[in-house]
C-alpha cells in the first residue's frame, strides 16, 4: 500500500528542561507490527501519548489514513481507531470484568450485551476470560487480557502496547504473540514498545529506535541481533555482566516451612516455603507478579513477622525480629516499589540514606542523627553507583526510575550485607543501568555474600543466578541449577499458562 496507516512527520515536544521528542518521523503500515525501542527517558512514552491524544506536540504533524490527525484528547484518538494497552493496568479490583470494561466506554450497552461480546472476542482471539469474575482475583496475565479485550471491542486500526510482557510467563507470552499475529493478519497495525529485544525479534517486522528523543535508527528486527539493537539504543558498547565461577560456602539463610496469611485482601498467603541459601551464591526466584513476591520479601525484611523458627539466619532464629534487628544481623532487603516503599519520594537522598542505613552505618548516636555522616554515606552511594543527580540534597522523586533504583540497591550493597534480598531490581530501568545493577549484585556474591534476586525477567535471572526457583501462588518450587534449564521447563515451574490456549489462527 502506498499510503501508510499512520505517518508521523517531524514531531517535536519539549518540556521545561528536556526535549522529549525531537523531529520524530516514521510510518506504520496497515497490519504492520512495529517496534518502538529506546531506553527509559528516550521519549517513547511521550511519543505514544502524542498519538493517543494525551500530549499535544509543539511542532510536527500526523496523518491517519491520509487525513490530518491531531487528536485533542484520548476520546478522539479512540474514535479514530487508536487503542492503547498501558503498562500499568487501570482496573478496579472490586468490580467484575464486564463492569470494568463498561467503565471505559462512552455509552456502555447493558451488562449482558458486554458479557456476550467479551465472550465472543475472547473466543475469537484465544483469550479466555469470564466476564463475571472479580478483577481482584485475576492473575496479572488475565488482567492484561481484560485491557486487551477492552481495546479490541473498539475495533482498532492501531493497537499500542506498552511493555506488555513484563507480567507474563513464557507460555502466556507465546499466546499473546499468537493473538497479536492474528490481529496483524486481519489488518490491525500494532505499535509494540518493549525492552525485551528477543521478543521484538520474534514478533516485529520493523523497529524504530529512539535515543534522547530522536530517531537514531530503524532496522528489521528479524535480521538484526539483539546486541546490535541494544547498542543502537544505548549509543555505546553494552557491558554484559560477567558471572565468574566462585566457591559456594555454608548455608547462611534457611526458610523452614515459612507460611503467612495474606496481609491484605488482594495479597497472597505464603505456603510452606522451604529454602536454603549459601554464602556466595545468587539465587533467582522467578514468578508472575502477585504470586507472593511482595509477601516473601516482607517476611525476609521483617515487615511481616512470622514464627521464630521459620526464618533461620546464621544459625539464629529470626522470624520474629523487626527490620532493624535483621539489618543489624546482616540481612538486608530492597523492595520492588521504589517510590513510597524502598524510598520516600519527597525526602532528600540523604534522608533516604537514613531510612535503611542508620543501624549498620551508625548514622544516629543515641537517637540523634549524624547529618554529616548521612550525607557522606549518600554521596558515597551516588558516586559508587553512578547515580545521576546534582547531589544528595535532591528529593528522591526528582530522580529517574533507573537512577533511583541504582541508589536504592547501592544503599543496601554499600552496607556490606551478608544476605541481600532484591525484588525486581531492574524493573523499568534502562539497559545500561540494569547491566550495572546486575554486575553489582554479582560482585556482591563474589565477595561471599548471598544474594536472592526475585524477578519476572527470566532473561535476567538466567544471566545472573546460580540456582533458580519459581514462586507460584505463594508456593516455592525446589531450586534447580540455572545452567541447562530450558524455557519450557522454567515455564512449567512458573505454573504454566494460567488456563490459556493458543489462538486459533485458522479460525
Amino acid at each position, binding site marked *: 500500500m502506498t499510503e501508510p496507516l499512520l505517518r508521523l512527520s517531524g514531531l517535536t515536544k519539549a518540556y521545561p528542561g528536556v526535549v522529549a521528542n525531537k523531529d520524530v518521523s516514521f510510518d506504520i503500515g496497515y497490519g504492520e507490527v512495529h517496534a518502538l525501542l529506546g531506553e527509559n527517558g528516550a521519549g517513547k512514552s511521550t511519543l505514544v501519548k502524542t498519538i493517543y491524544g494525551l500530549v499535544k506536540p509543539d511542532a510536527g504533524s500526523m496523518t491517519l489514513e491520509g487525513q490530518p490527525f491531531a487528536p485533542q484528547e484520548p476520546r478522539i484518538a479512540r474514535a479514530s481507531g487508536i487503542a492503547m494497552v498501558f503498562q500499568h493496568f487501570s482496573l478496579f479490583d472490586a468490580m467484575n470484568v464486564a463492569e470494568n470494561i463498561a467503565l471505559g466506554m462512552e455509552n456502555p450497552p447493558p451488562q449482558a450485551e458486554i458479557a456476550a461480546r467479551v465472550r465472543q472476542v475472547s473466543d475469537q482471539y484465544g483469550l479466555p476470560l469470564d466476564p463475571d469474575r472479580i478483577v481482584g482475583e485475576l492473575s496479572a496475565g488475565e488482567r492484561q487480557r481484560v485491557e486487551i479485550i477492552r481495546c479490541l471491542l473498539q475495533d482498532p486500526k492501531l493497537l499500542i502496547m506498552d511493555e506488555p510482557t513484563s507480567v507474563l510467563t513464557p507460555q502466556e507470552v507465546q499466546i499473546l504473540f499468537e493473538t497479536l499475529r492474528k490481529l496483524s493478519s486481519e489488518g490491525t497495525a500494532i505499535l509494540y514498545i518493549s525492552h525485551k529485544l528477543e521478543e521484538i525479534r520474534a514478533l516485529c517486522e520493523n523497529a524504530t529506535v529512539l535515543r534522547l528523543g530522536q530517531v537514531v535508527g530503524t532496522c528489521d528486527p528479524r535480521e538484526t541481533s539483539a546486541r546490535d539493537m541494544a547498542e543502537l539504543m544505548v549509543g555505546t558498547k553494552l557491558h554484559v555482566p560477567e558471572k565468574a565461577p566462585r566457591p559456594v560456602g555454608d548455608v547462611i539463610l534457611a526458610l523452614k516451612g515459612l507460611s503467612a496469611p495474606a496481609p491484605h485482601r488482594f495479597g497472597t498467603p505464603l505456603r510452606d516455603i522451604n529454602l536454603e541459601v549459601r554464602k556466595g551464591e545468587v539465587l533467582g526466584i522467578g514468578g508472575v507478579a502477585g504470586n507472593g513476591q511482595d509477601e516473601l520479601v516482607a517476611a525476609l525484611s521483617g515487615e511481616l513477622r512470622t514464627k521464630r523458627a521459620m526464618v533461620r539466619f546464621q544459625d539464629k532464629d529470626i522470624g520474629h525480629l523487626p527490620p532493624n534487628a535483621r539489618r543489624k544481623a546482616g540481612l538486608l532487603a530492597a523492595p520492588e516499589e521504589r517510590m*513510597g516503599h524502598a524510598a520516600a519520594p519527597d*525526602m532528600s537522598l540523604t534522608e533516604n540514606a537514613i*531510612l535503611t542505613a542508620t543501624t549498620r552505618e551508625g548514622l544516629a548516636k543515641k537517637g540523634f542523627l549524624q547529618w554529616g555522616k548521612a550525607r557522606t554515606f549518600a554521596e558515597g552511594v551516588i558516586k559508587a553507583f553512578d547515580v545521576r543527580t546534582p547531589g544528595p540534597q535532591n528529593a528522591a522523586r526528582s530522580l529517574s526510575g533507573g537512577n533511583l533504583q541504582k541508589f536504592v540497591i547501592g544503599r543496601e550493597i554499600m552496607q556490606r550485607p551478608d544476605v541481600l534480598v532484591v525484588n525486581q531490581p531492574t524493573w523499568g530501568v534502562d539497559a545500561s543501568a540494569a547491566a550495572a545493577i546486575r554486575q553489582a549484585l554479582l560482585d556482591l556474591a563474589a565477595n561471599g555474600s548471598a544474594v536472592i534476586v526475585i524477578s519476572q525477567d527470566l532473561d535476567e535471572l538466567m544471566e545472573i543466578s546460580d540456582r533458580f526457583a519459581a514462586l507460584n501462588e505463594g508456593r516455592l518450587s525446589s531450586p534447580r541449577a540455572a545452567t541447562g534449564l530450558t524455557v519450557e521447563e522454567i515455564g512449567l515451574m512458573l505454573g504454566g499458562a494460567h488456563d490459556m490456549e493458543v489462538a486459533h489462527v485458522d479460525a
Partner: protein
Amino acid sequence: MIRLEKRPQPSRPWVFATPVLAVLLTMLFGGLLFAALGQNPFETIRTIFFDPLFSEFAWFYRPQLLIKGAPLVLIAMGLSFGFRAGIWNIGAEGQYIVGAICGAAVGLAFYPMESFIIFPLMVVAGALGGFAWAMIPGFLRVRFGTNEILVSLMLVYVAEQLLASMALGALRNPDGMGFPGSRNLAQYDSASSWISQSAGMHWGVVAALIAVIVAYIALSRHIFGFNVKLSGQSPRAARFAGVNPARLVLVCMGISGVLAGLAGLFEIAGPAGQVSIDFNVGYGFTAIIVAFLGRLHPVGILLAGGLMALTYIGGEIAQSNLGLPLAAIQLLQGMLLFFLLAVDVLTNFRVQFGRKEVAS
C-alpha cells in the same frame, strides 16, 4: 488559561512564602468583607492586626498576647507531631479540659496548705490527665482500628460534661455560697501558675517556649522526628525503615495529650483561675489552625500562635470599638486557614499562564 504543573521537588522559597501570602490575602479579602459590612476596611484591618501591638493602649494588650498565645502554641506543638505522621487528634480541647481538672483537683486537695511541692504535683497531674484522655482514642485505634478523629472529637463533649459536673459538684467552692465553680487557684499562692500577672507571664508561657525548642531539636536532629515525618509521607517506607506504626500512634497521641493537659493546667491555675462551666474557650480547636498555619514547624507554630492571639485580641478591640459582630472575626480566622490551604498548592505546583503545554 491557568494551568498547574507539578514541580520536580517542593519549592523551598514557597514553603516560607505561602503563610505570608495567606495572611496578606486574608487582610485583602477580610477588608472587602468589612467594607461590605459598612466599615472602613483600612481602619478595621489596622485595629485587628496592628492596634494590639502599636496603639497607645498596647501596654494593656501585649500581656494579653502572651496569655492567649501560650496555650495555643503549647497545644499546637503537641498536635504537630501527630499531624506530621498522619495521626489526627482533633480532641485536644477535651485533653485540655481533663488536664485542667486533674491539675486543679490536686491543687484544691492541698488547700490551704502552702508548700513549694504543690505546683509541681499539679503540673504532673495535669500532664497525666491529658495523657490519659488522649490514650483512649489512641488505644482504641491501635487495638480495634477505630477512627481517632471521631473518638477524640466525641471525647471533647464527654470532657465538657465532666467539667460541668466538677464545677457543680466535687470541686465546687465550699465557701462559695452555692455558686458553681471552684476556689480561685490564681489567688492560692502555692497553686498559682502566675510568674508576673502584669506582664502576662505564667509558667505556661515558659512551657510553650521549652516545647518549641525541644520539638525543634526532635524534628530536625532526632531519629524520632525523622520517623514521624517518614510515617506521614510514606507509611510503607516507614514500616520498611522499622517504624512500629502502633507504637507511633500511641507516642504521638501521648505527646499531644500531655501538652494539651499542661496547657489546661497552666490556664486554670492562672488566667482562668477556677474550675467553671465555661472554662474552655476553644483553644484546643484553634490550635489545629495554628499548627497548620505554622506549617507544622516549631518556629512556624510559634509565629502562628502569636498571629492567632493577635486576631483574637484585635477582634475583641474591633468588636468593642467598631461594633463588629463576633461572627465577622470568626470568618476572618476561617479565611486565614482557607487561604493557607489554598496557596499551599504553590509549594508543589507552579502556575503556568497562557498556552497549554508550554515549551521552555
